[in-house]
């Protein structure tokens, strides 16, 4: 299980958990003390990261999240970029584990 966190300065914490299978993110979980409207947009966010390559850059990850969020959804205190950063941190932790 990989775990990465990123707190937006002056904002909220994003924590990302997932398992890497065949160089892809699986069983992705996004949690934290952010605000999100509506609640169901969380499924859009986690769904957008499922199956994504471990090679994806921070901005590619952020773009996926941004596109997947349903119309009118609002993430308050954090951002798609913050989610991308948390994922990259989790992957970096994995590289360290392997080394």
């Amino acid at each position, binding site marked *: 299980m990989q775990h990465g*966190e*990123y*707190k937006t*300065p*002056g*904002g*909220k*914490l994003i*924590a990302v*958990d997932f398992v890497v299978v065949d160089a892809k993110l699986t069983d992705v*979980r*996004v*949690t*934290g*003390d*952010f*605000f*999100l*409207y*509506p*609640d169901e947009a*969380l499924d859009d966010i986690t769904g957008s990261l499922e199956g994504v390559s471990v090679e994806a850059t921070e901005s590619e990850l952020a773009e996926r999240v941004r596109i997947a969020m349903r119309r009118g959804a*609002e993430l*308050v*205190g954090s951002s798609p970029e913050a989610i991308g950063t948390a994922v990259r941190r989790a992957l970096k932790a994995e590289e360290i584990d392997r080394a």
Partner: protein
Amino acid sequence: MPERASPSLETAEQRWLQHEWRVIGPEPRAPNMNMALDEVLTERVGRGERPPTLWVWGWSAPCIVLGRFQSVRNEVNETNAVANGVEIVRRISGGGAMFIQPEGAITYSILAPDSLVAGLTFPESYAFLDSWVVRALHGLGVEARYEPLNDITSAGGKIGGAAQARRNGAVLHHTTMAYQMDIPLMLQVLRIGQEKLSDKGTRSADKRVGPLRQQTELPRDEIISHLLDEFRRSYPSREDALTAEEIEAAEQRVRERFATRAWTHILP
């Protein structure tokens, strides 16, 4: 002059006066019941079955209240929580975990049609809905201010935090302020990671908080009375109580959802 889409805060302030607010004082209730009442009352205000309301909570047991999107594992040491009789509940709004002891916290909800905050940004709406509390704290000699997004703070430390949820045309805004805190117990049951403190300029959770008892030296009940007085003075209001129907609806929802592990551990 360019047109401004959002109302000025002074214009928005007038909106409080367009309602006759119902004020419900505190009675101790189970943590789950408070979670359920929050949702039931918000829905009823949204449907127009209850006028806009200020409801002060009472707590009957110690608990950890998780935000809607938090992971139990990341936030709570469950073994220590169980050992200390601290229940884990989850609210319908986002935001961070709180450790609550019945006499240690002051919590209230504002339930209103979302027209009250129409056109305000999220940060504006937080400060707007707690503006009367900041005034009330000034009246107690606490130089409180709002710190975006959702904190009430003073030079003496962080006092409390707010969270909002929106449901069918209604806004729920609830705030918990610390009255006194058992910091050693809090640190046993809550996990406070380093990343969370990364932009706070301090590593120790206990240096960040300034409970109201410490800042006012007043009894908790007196602070609550003072808050309610400020609200009544500011906005047209009358006393009210929860109806039997509301309590029944909330009890049903506790059984169906708020007391279930499927809800409390929805994000394990």
